């Protein structure tokens, strides 16, 4: 493989045109995903992290649409394709979706059909994207696909895979269902896996199992993962590179250790401080981020974080929008505390 990124998102904008006005859910997001890298996207509700991943799969629901930007994805053949330009219902995105880029959704219950067995659905997916298993062409027989699923189930730690194959999603426990979902996502040997809050709906001990499984699979298969979560603990344990988002913009990005131990952006710092931890003093006031998240129709001018920022520079932060620029240590931040570059107006 060459050294270039597997996915390169540049200046992505997603706009929702509503009756009351338009909402810029994603407002100029840029980041790279290198082959085999785990990129964590973290942020609070409304920061646009889920919409970003939907845009990557061309799954933005109307009235939302990709308004600007590019998402260059290097396909298996080596040629790059701009996902932002693809027809959401076209042949090319359907070839990529589920095969080269797979999704692990938050709620596995909603993602499996209740009237087909889990096995059947994965067999179908494999047969649909036969090229991933038969690069030279030709179909995958039902029996072959079934054998693949049994291997996959064993791979994701589902005991008695032959029996579980024939059960329905609602017969499985939460943990098993999420494992089956991961097997489904892996069934077409994707090169990029998008995990959208995959452990939010499950308990902490099950979460530990699923996270361990994902780490193990990632190590063995070298799949690149984009991991979306609001849980800083999960990000710290999973990601090698972190993107921090707020109100549709990237506030800061960099290697996980730098983000957690030398955060540069005031938002990242405030976010880390406001979390109750498993050490330290209890029953004391936690440092908070003042104010509330602005209503999407009332985006502040300038840096979106400035009304809540303790270090805001008067006259500067509310006037111009800082761009994301390298600030040393492999990190980039969009903050005037660290550079002077503003977005052209």
């Amino acid at each position: 493989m060459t050294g270039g990124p597997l996915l390169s998102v540049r200046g992505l904008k997603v706009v929702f045109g509503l009756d009351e006005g338009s909402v810029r859910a994603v407002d100029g997001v840029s980041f790279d995903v290198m082959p085999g890298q785990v990129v964590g996207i973290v942020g609070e509700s409304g920061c646009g992290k889920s919409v970003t991943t939907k845009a990557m799969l061309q799954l933005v629901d109307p009235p939302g649409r990709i308004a600007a930007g590019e998402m260059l994805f290097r396909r298996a053949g080596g040629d790059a394709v701009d996902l932002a330009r693809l027809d959401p219902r076209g042949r090319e995105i359907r070839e990529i979706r589920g095969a080269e880029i797979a999704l692990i959704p938050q709620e596995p219950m909603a993602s499996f059909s209740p009237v087909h067995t889990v096995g059947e659905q994965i067999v179908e997916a494999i047969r649909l994207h036969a090229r991933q298993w038969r690069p030279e062409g030709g179909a995958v027989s039902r029996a072959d696909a079934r054998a693949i699923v049994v291997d996959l189930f064993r791979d994701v730690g589902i005991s008695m895979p032959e029996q579980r194959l024939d059960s329905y999603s609602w017969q499985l426990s939460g943990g098993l269902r999420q494992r089956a979902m991961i097997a489904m996502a892996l069934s077409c040997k994707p090169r990029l896996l998008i995990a959208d809050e995959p452990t939010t709906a499950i308990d902490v001990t099950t979460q530990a199992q699923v996270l361990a499984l994902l780490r193990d699979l990632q190590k063995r298969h070298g799949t690149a993962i984009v991991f979306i979560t609001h849980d800083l603990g999960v990000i710290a344990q999973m990601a090698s590179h972190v993107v921090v988002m707020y109100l549709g913009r990237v506030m800061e990005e960099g290697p996980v250790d730098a983000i957690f131990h030398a955060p540069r952006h005031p938002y990242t710092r405030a976010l880390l401080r406001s979390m109750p931890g498993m050490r330290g003093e209890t029953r004391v006031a936690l440092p908070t981020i003042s104010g509330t998240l602005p209503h999407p129709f009332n985006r502040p001018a300038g840096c979106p974080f400035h009304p809540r920022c303790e270090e805001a520079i008067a006259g500067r932060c509310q006037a111009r929008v800082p761009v994301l620029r390298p600030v040393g240590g492999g990190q980039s931040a969009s903050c005037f505390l660290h550079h002077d570059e503003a977005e052209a107006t």
Partner: protein
Amino acid sequence: MSGPDGAQPLLRVRNLRKFFPIVKGVFSRTVGHVRAVDDVGFDVHEGETLGLVGESGCGKTTTSRCILRAMAPTSGEMLYRRRDGSTVDLAPLSRRELRPLRAEIQMIFQDPFGSLNPRMTLFDNVGEPLLVNGMSNRGERMDRVAELLRLVGLRPEFMHRFPHAFSGGQRQRIGIARALSTNPRLVVADEPVSALDVSVQAQVLNLLLELQQRLRLTFLFVAHDLSVVRHISDRVAVMYVGQIVELAPTKSIFERPLHPYTAALLKAVPVADPRVPAGDVLLKGEVPSPASPPAGCYFNPRCPFADERCRREAPVLRELATGHSVRCHHAERLQLAVPQERIDPAGRSG
């Protein structure tokens, strides 16, 4: 047992059980029971926060609903000490007998969107408990609602707005104002911050701590997030399959857990620091169904230390050190890994 200040506990729960029948067929035949709460007992002292943690289905919510008498327990006692010092068992009370007690025991809900009536203004939402508890003068109610909104950090002018005008964090404050309107003594908070974002969660936790001090409130804090429970609780009870497996002061339970399940639970929490390596997954398998729990100790199929006795004989909750109770045959002998030195993220110390 008496409280730290020698006083009687505010609430004393003994042998609480709540079984839900499993019915089948046209004739609604009962074929079994879900043992949602299975012999739970604890004390809540005045002014303290007792955290109730466990994974989904462990019975923590059912326990809290029984104490609130949103449902009737199958058996057991819930002795509540009233303001005048008399003690009343909440378990057998009828709807009518409960009504005067409702003002003293209130609840904060998990979902800030579902717990307020969207068709009523803040004044009507927050003022309703006052109205039904006898404050019929509208002006008086207005003053009290304004005072309550100020108390939770909202502007009194918001009174005439509807809940849809507020964010999740603000609605949670409104819910808190409503719960506090009748000057309750015991507040049951059921996952009050789990639907909120990290930054808002910190604001609400601070508010709860501040209010507790100012109003001398007693909290029963039900949650699944261990770091939140650790932050807010004086004592913590860990539940597993309808039973309390360990009950101790916060510091002891988080630093020296005595039950293997507690230890595994603590280890499973992902630490917000990339330099702390992810621990090995201690727990294999799944939580057993409360409809058919295993024989002996309910935890034995997943416990790395289980032996023949654990599979045969159900352990009882026993006090091992002062105020530290555990439901395990081998608690004294186990060398449970103290959660590893977990370095604080630099962000916190900075």
